[in-house]
């Protein structure tokens, strides 16, 4: 289990190296434009170099004082993240408000509210009220979908 904790700095180091490699692929601007300033790639590379130094210090700290074990996520956390994906899918295929309502309903249910009518009311009334507020007061148009098409005509 303890070995798993090293994943964090290793992941961060790999991320920093990846950013450096991507930065090296960025276009080089002519001297006339850049002048005495720096190229667009220089600043991200500089930042990631600092990050690599900080990650090395973090590694050293891990050797000296090993952090406490991190508990694994529970079902509701993973399911909530899955709901984000479901929301994405429903938004692009049906309607953003259908996505919100379905996710709210399922989130409420898996988080422990077993009364279906309470979840249903929450999932229907809340997005409805927010929609009306944003549409009528803030004049914000929402993306087209099954429901918004009916409303906008």
């Amino acid at each position, binding site marked *: 289990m303890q070995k798993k904790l090293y994943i964090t700095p290793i992941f961060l180091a790999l991320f920093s190296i990846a950013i450096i490699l991507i930065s090296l692929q960025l276009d080089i601007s002519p001297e006339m434009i850049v002048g*005495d300033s720096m190229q667009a790639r220089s*600043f991200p590379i500089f930042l990631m170099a600092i990050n690599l130094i900080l990650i090395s210090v973090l590694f050293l700290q891990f050797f000296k004082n090993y952090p406490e074990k991190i508990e694994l996520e529970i079902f509701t956390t993973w399911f909530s993240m899955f709901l984000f994906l479901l929301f*994405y899918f429903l938004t692009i295929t049906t309607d953003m408000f259908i996505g919100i309502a379905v996710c709210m309903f399922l989130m*409420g249910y898996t988080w422990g509210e077993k009364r279906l009518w309470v979840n249903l009311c*929450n999932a229907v009334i809340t997005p409805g009220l927010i929609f009306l507020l*944003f549409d009528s*007061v803030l004049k914000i148009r929402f993306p087209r979908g099954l429901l918004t098409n009916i409303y906008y005509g």
Partner: protein
Amino acid sequence: MVELSAMASVFTDPYLIALIFATTILGVIIGVLPGLGATTGAAILLPFTLTMEPVQAIAVLSTIYVSATFAGSITAILINTPGTSASAATTFDGYPLAQKGEAGRALGVAVVSSTIGGVFSIIVLCIAAPLLARVAYEFRPPEYFALTVFGLSMLASISAGGAVKNLIGGVFGVWLSTIGAERVTNVERFMFGNYELYEGLSFVPVFIGLFAISELLVQSKTVNKIIETVALKAVKLPTKEDYKKIWKTILRSCGIGTFIGILPAEGATVASMIGYSEAKRWSKNPEEFGKGSVEGIAGAEAANNAATGGAMVPTMVLGIPGSGTTAIILVGLMVHGLRPGAYLFTEQVDTVYQIFGSMLLANFMFMAMGLYAAKLFARVSLIPRPTLWPIVFALSVIGAYAIQQSTLDIWIALIFGVIGFFARRHGFAVAPIAVGLILGEMVETNLQNSLKMFDGQWWMILTQPLAAFFLVLAFLGLCGPYIYGMITKQNK
């Protein structure tokens, strides 16, 4: 004189008074709901201020800031769960005092100390901000570059996370600011063909993700937590005896809180912890701390509310956020076309002092609510999480969409929610990422301009006295504790 009349105009504008009253209620509700602090609340509410006038919009955000910071103490005292991280120190003595049947007294001390702290810091804000603005007029790119580096170095001492982890978060935040087209050369950086990112990452969806959605995922782990409440009959104002005990503590914490608030990137949480420990250090009865000491409550509460006004000083004058919530207020200023910085104090002096006046009014309003409606607000904290957090989800995704009416912003908010959650799980605080994102553009632009000024000779920055001063401060802030530790080790 102009300043005073601008401040006073807030107290004669019925619409603004009604707005601040309504927002104070909302702020107190946000503050008492565990997990929903001032930062999360401000992030969610920012899109709702889009159609408001700049003064009204910033008044809403700053009222949320001061009232939610105070309200965290209600649940800290009654259910031993701080509504905000800034109230964590209040639980040490607030809850034990409540358990003794003196919940009303504990809340009374918290309300009075918070109000004094808040009002004191706004007075300091009114005096210090214009003075600092005058100094800031002299700043050129090297000074601004050094100042932002100093601001970033201060991330090391944010309470949550370790120094190194906070700095990594800050650097990550600065890197995020490089996404999009580079301003001088127009070279596209890290866009991966997505032209909606040409102008860079929008702050609001990133903040909604980092603060609101990541908190939702954190709360998903505590769905079965049982909350125990302490009965509250009525809130009592402190007695003469209490005042005798706590007045010195309140004054000391006012100073500590305001000073810590002014430091870039520090906030109410650090202030309350230091305020509490100093109250204990100077107390005649330190043994009472942890068992229901009114001095402990006063020390923590005066300091955390004093930090709110203090944190507005660097935010308004230098464009450097003093805390996570002021980072959102800073974005609010930008969204409403106000340019934070020294020029704000000459170009829009009325607006600035109306914002200060709104904060002052909010302090008096939460005092009234704390004294007369704390019992009612405490009940709000018992709203079941399975009902509350789906609502937060809906508000977050719609809020993320509303700013630019772009679905990409929703996905950005959700992605940063997941990033923020895993960062927090591994001991990284999310506030440094937010502060880094805001300061990133300032750092790069001022570094570029400094290099142009000095014909590419970067070391010339060190020859500028003020710039050198800030860089030395940054160095001492980062390495000072280690050097001091090594010296004391050698001496032993």
